[in-house]
């Protein structure tokens, strides 16, 4: 088997060092490239679509660099993993920054946790949702292999995803409200948490992604 190539899409939003190093760690034989080049991305066997920061800036750069078409094309043909704002930008629209249209590859909204969030006991919850929270695996998926149901992953976000078609949800988390922590459809998987910062559980998910044939 020839070495698999993974392209980490670099559109200037945030640090991709950890994501690239985590992929190299879990797949020592793989070639990891960090790039904004459409040809390089589309010649890779698999694609990681990360993102941090404000959605307007992210979408602005994605469109400016013509990466919207690249992401759509990659999603047609090979394993694609969206992370954090990368996941959010796959949705229809985000209410961040006064409302921003996203790629609409998945029907759904990105919503604000709100200033008045409480847990089941009535304790006020801080926003951003920052830290390690449990992810309930809603349905089996190759990317959950060897990860215990309810494992904790590292989150940092103030906006969350609400899918129109909840059958696409693969992982659920709760922070004042239940929300989509992971979604999957065919060869696309996306997570709100940061697997590259989620120690063993996160590295296992990345390893699964690197071995995934894109069949769900």
């Amino acid at each position, binding site marked *: 088997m020839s070495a698999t190539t993974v392209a980490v899409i670099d559109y200037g939003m*945030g*640090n991709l*060092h*950890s994501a690239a*190093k*985590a992929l190299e*760690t879990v797949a020592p034989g793989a070639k990891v490239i960090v790039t904004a080049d459409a040809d390089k991305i589309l010649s890779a066997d698999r694609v990681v679509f990360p993102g*941090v*920061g*404000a959605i307007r800036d992210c979408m602005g750069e994605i469109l400016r660099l013509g990466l919207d078409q690249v992401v759509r094309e990659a999603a047609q043909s090979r394993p694609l993993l969206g992370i954090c704002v990368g996941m959010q930008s796959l949705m229809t629209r985000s209410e961040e920054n006064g409302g921003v249209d996203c790629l609409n590859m998945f029907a759904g909204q990105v919503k604000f946790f709100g*200033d008045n969030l409480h*847990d089941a006991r009535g304790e006020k*919850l*801080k*926003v*951003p*949702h*920052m*830290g*390690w*929270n*449990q992810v309930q695996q809603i349905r089996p998926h190759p990317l959950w292999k060897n990860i*215990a149901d*309810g*494992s*904790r992953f*590292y*989150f*940092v*976000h*103030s906006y969350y995803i609400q899918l129109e078609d909840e059958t696409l949800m693969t992982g659920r988390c*709760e*922070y004042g409200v239940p929300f989509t922590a992971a979604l999957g459809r065919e060869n696309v998987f996306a997570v709100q948490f*940061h697997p*590259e*910062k*989620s*120690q063993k*559980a*996160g*590295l296992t998910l990345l390893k699964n992604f690197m071995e995934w044939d894109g069949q769900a």
Partner: protein
Amino acid sequence: MGLAKRIIPCLDVDNGRVVKGVKFLDIRDAGDPVEIARRYDEQGADEITFLDITASHEGRDTMVHTVEKMASQVFIPLTVGGGIRKLEDIRTMLNAGADKVSINTAAVFNPEFVGEAAAKFGSQCIVVAIDAKKVSAAGEPGRWEIFTHGGRKPTGLDAVEWAKKMVGFGAGEILLTSMDRDGTKNGFDLDVTRAISDAVAVPVIASGGVGNLQHLAEGVTIGKADAVLAASIFHFGEYTVQQAKQFMAAQGIEMRLD
């Protein structure tokens, strides 16, 4: 089920070496920050904070390499503090693999810097460090002021109001250190921790004064902190991070134990 409270070991780094010393029984060179971070990661640390106390320009470059090395080997969040004064400093640390930077003195002298940083890089990576000292007399309602220069210089700024202002500018997290308690091992200043945690919508990390595991637990249960930061109790092998987490979990605090 819910969000876990975090334990964050903090390392003071000077020219790429950990100062104040860290003693693990089974490692010979306890001055390498990456090696120590790995140990804490293995023990279940939820994040790591590197506080860069290097004065020289060359030392800063060393810190960048240290951060790069750490971020290549340890896959939990890393915060870098100390000497973050310009947007360029933030970009350098984030590109090296830091997830968050902690801004202290620069925020006091130029609060708008926090706003610029949050607008540029996102609130999620901007931690504002607050060094607070109690200025109210015994029996009076609690009042705390911001101090700079390691707690030597008063600024006249009220700590609770300052925290609210920083969050207004876009700080995503507050790292609160009690200058009265730092180094005393008498426990956090729970009053100021609670006052600030109640006053702001973002997570608060309690710091300064931890001497035992009960102190860590109280930071959360009484101080309402979202995370607790400690250095010496872990560095000298008094307790492992895992012991601390189990102790806190036994008190009903939600912790990451897996």
